[in-house]
């Protein structure tokens, strides 16, 4: 409740600051606004920023640190017998305190010391909320007063406001960088913890994958087995199937649309293809599991083949269909970037249209097409829902697309869906897989995007 109250107060004070600054600026020159350095509304913004910005920064910093600080205070007050345990029991204790403080029953009678800690925690948070409100509001009022005090005919309000706005713009553009840093750090951090339990060589080259770790240490399979090779092989298999569908169809569709189809046909065929790209992946997954997999199985049985009901073929075909528009729109771009003079030269030598395309346009567009295929491969490797819904969960090291395989993304999803214990190698292995996935797709993307760019520049 207090954060909402503070937010409302801040909004109110900012608006007041704006109005006060504007009117004071006009008053300071007796209404002859032309004598001001900046127009009055910039003075208003100047005061508003003084009122809102410091308090907002305080609010953010406070909210970020408050919970942690309160928890540390509470924990330091607990008897040693409770806090002496290892990391896991400590995090369990913290969770108990949090739940009790929020009034959620933990299902068992709490230790009186823990109940007391929870009460103290709640009281501390409450106190912190009210003091934040008080401090934040007074900071805003002080800022307002200071900003208003500075206003005069000589105040360079506009440059000051613009400096702040530009700084905000820079911060926004850094969010993208921070996201990448966050991805790399979180994957790396968790993956390193995983690799301290399972050696990277076993992970990358082991052929047995069974992440289910038994509850008790003395049970069979208590260590789990984290050889991810079958997962990589399964991903590769599904990707290969998808590419054998997507690349020929996508490329031929792009060629047809850009070289053969008339203008009228193109205007409605291109958007139709793009609808395929806009369909959510979960829909493809449903289609793969309910329509394609039985169809593939029936077709296989008609041919006398033994097809698994969760075959890599069905998932791969549907994934290929999903990627067709991706390949075709990227190839379309590169084919259109090939200069007309090359085509005209070829026609002048007497080549037919298809000869021109196959022997002049495509070789000239080849780097771009290869880049498009690489981006499509990266898309296929990272695709999750189709394989989660239509391919199996059992790791199977095979090159036969009629059998069920599992993929990296399927396993990441399976390992992390539902309740998970932190710090268990089972949960952490998902981050190991995620790191591999990220690195592989990153390499593909970086190379492909660079090729696309240099290629575009070459013909510009």
């Amino acid at each position: 409740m207090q954060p909402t109250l503070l937010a409302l107060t801040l909004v109110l004070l900012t608006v007041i600051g704006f109005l006060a600054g504007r009117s004071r600026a006009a008053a300071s020159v007796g209404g002859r606004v032309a004598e001001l350095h900046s127009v009055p509304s910039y003075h208003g913004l100047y005061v508003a920023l003084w009122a809102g910005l410091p308090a907002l920064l305080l609010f953010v910093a406070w909210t970020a640190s408050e919970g942690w600080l309160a928890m540390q205070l509470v924990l330091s007050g607990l008897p040693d017998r409770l806090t002496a345990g290892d990391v896991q029991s400590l995090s369990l204790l913290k969770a108990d305190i949090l739940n009790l403080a929020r009034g959620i029953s933990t299902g068992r009678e709490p230790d009186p010391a823990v109940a007391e800690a929870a009460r103290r925690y709640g009281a501390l948070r409450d106190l912190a909320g009210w003091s934040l409100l008080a401090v934040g509001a007074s900071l805003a009022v002080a800022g307002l007063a200071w900003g208003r005090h500075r206003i005069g005919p000589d105040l360079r309000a506009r440059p000051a406001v613009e400096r702040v706005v530009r700084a905000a713009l820079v911060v926004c553009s850094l969010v993208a960088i921070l996201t990448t840093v966050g991805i790399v750090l979180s994957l790396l951090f968790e993956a390193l913890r995983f690799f301290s339990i399972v050696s990277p060589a076993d992970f990358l080259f082991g052929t047995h994958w069974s992440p289910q770790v038994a509850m008790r240490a003395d049970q069979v399979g208590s260590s789990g087995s984290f050889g991810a090779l079958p997962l990589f092989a399964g991903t590769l298999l599904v990707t290969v199937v998808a590419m054998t569908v997507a690349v020929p169809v996508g490329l031929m569709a792009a060629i047809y649309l850009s070289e053969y189809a008339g203008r009228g046909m193109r205007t409605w065929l291109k958007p139709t293809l793009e609808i395929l790209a806009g369909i959510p992946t979960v829909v493809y997954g449903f289609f793969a599991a309910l329509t394609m997999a039985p169809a593939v199985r029936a077709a296989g049985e008609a041919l006398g083949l033994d097809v698994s009901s969760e075959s890599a073929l069905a998932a791969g075909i549907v994934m290929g269909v999903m990627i067709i528009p991706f390949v075709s729109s990227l190839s379309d771009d590169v084919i259109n970037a090939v200069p007309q003079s090359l085509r005209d030269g070829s026609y002048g030598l007497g080549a037919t249209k298809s000869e021109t395309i196959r022997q002049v346009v495509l070789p000239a567009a080849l780097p771009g097409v290869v880049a498009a295929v690489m981006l499509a491969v990266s898309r296929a490797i990272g695709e999750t829902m189709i394989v989660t819904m239509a391919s199996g969960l059992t790791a199977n090291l095979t090159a036969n697309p009629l059998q069920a395989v599992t993929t990296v993304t399927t396993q990441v999803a399976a390992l992390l869906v539902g309740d998970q214990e932190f710090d268990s190698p089972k949960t952490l292995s998902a981050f190991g897989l995620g790191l591999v996935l990220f690195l592989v797709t990153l390499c593909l993307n970086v190379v492909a995007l660079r090729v696309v760019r240099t290629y575009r520049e070459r013909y510009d």
Partner: protein
Amino acid sequence: MTDLIERETAAVPPAPVRAAGPRSHYKGEAFARRLRARHAAERRFRRAGAAAVAVAALMLVLLIGSIAARGASAFWETRIRLEVALDPAEVASGNYTAPLRRALHAQFPQVTDRAGRRVLNDLLSSGAPYELEAMVARDPAMVGTVRTVWVRADDEIDQLAKGHYRRDLPEGERGLSDAKVAAADALAAAGALAQGFNTTLFTAGDSREPEQAGMGGAIVGSLLTLLVTMLLSVPVGIAAAVYLEEFAPKNRWTGLIEVNINNLAAVPSIIFGLLGLAVFLGFFGLPRSAPLVGGLVMALMTLPVIIIAARAALRAVPPSIRDAALAIGASPLQTVLHHVLPLALPGILTGTIIGMARALGETAPLLMIGMVAFIVDIPHGLTDSATVLPVQIYMWADSPERAFTERTSAAILVLLGFLVLLNGVAVILRRIFERRW
């Protein structure tokens, strides 16, 4: 370069072509055959191209068609007519099951044994007593009278009435007992079985019973998540695009940001889920399954899309606009905020809507942050446990009951409807505001 053409031209004698004698390369049977072969190859290639487009279009039709065929019937639900006598004592004790069962048994006076009655009881949805309770709450005058009410049928009866069970199969293979089929047929013959528009599908939360399951909770969850995504990614994305396109010096640092944004747009979505799990849940301790966290993850995911679209829109504004504004004394920031940005806004808006449509259909990252839980209640706030439409589809697709297949397809149709709506708005906006400089 072109072996075919080279082969043809290499054989051309250096003498003028027109002067070629009877042994000319361009005459005779062999030449005609070659030409026919080349033209046939041309036709084959062209047909291959047309076939590729046709295959893609066919898959689209098959995809949408198969789902529409499965899901269309879910928009109707089967109801059973009962003459319910509401006993005040039973109502007072909250027993709404007994009046319903009495009314049902009264329609089958010949059934007196326990097993037969149990079959009859199973015709009704387990949610039927709650429906009756709600009716009584709306109209207390019902108590003590006999009223005709329509209550929801069990999902098996619903599926039977829609013809999804094969009656010609023997009992064991059909998955529905002959007794139930006979009872349902008797009800239908008496006109006590009817189908109406399925409002439950849109208003109810999730349920283990297919006939009571709805996607209301998921739709609200999707909207809440999308709201957070929009509030975060649109301002930040536009601000970042403005900085990179209008103010940033062209140096290594901004080059790095640019490469980084392009790469981020191609990072698999599940990686963003891992980021959300490790940072928002693990590090900041935000609640699991909350639309707030889902929205944060989606915002990071759509940010590069919005930045790229916004930059393209800003680049399309001609420099003369900027020059004119600067010439009459506007500051660089005023130039951008007062002139360039408003002109680029339609383009930015279109890109934003497409980014939102992508976020609406995304599933994988939300599985990582626990939005895949079974949640009956409709969420009311950003930190309530919630699920979203695509995840609801994923969960229903996993359910074994055949009635859930139908509901899954219907949910997909609704999701596709939302997406068509969003993209349609984007197309219309582009048509209205499109401007050629």
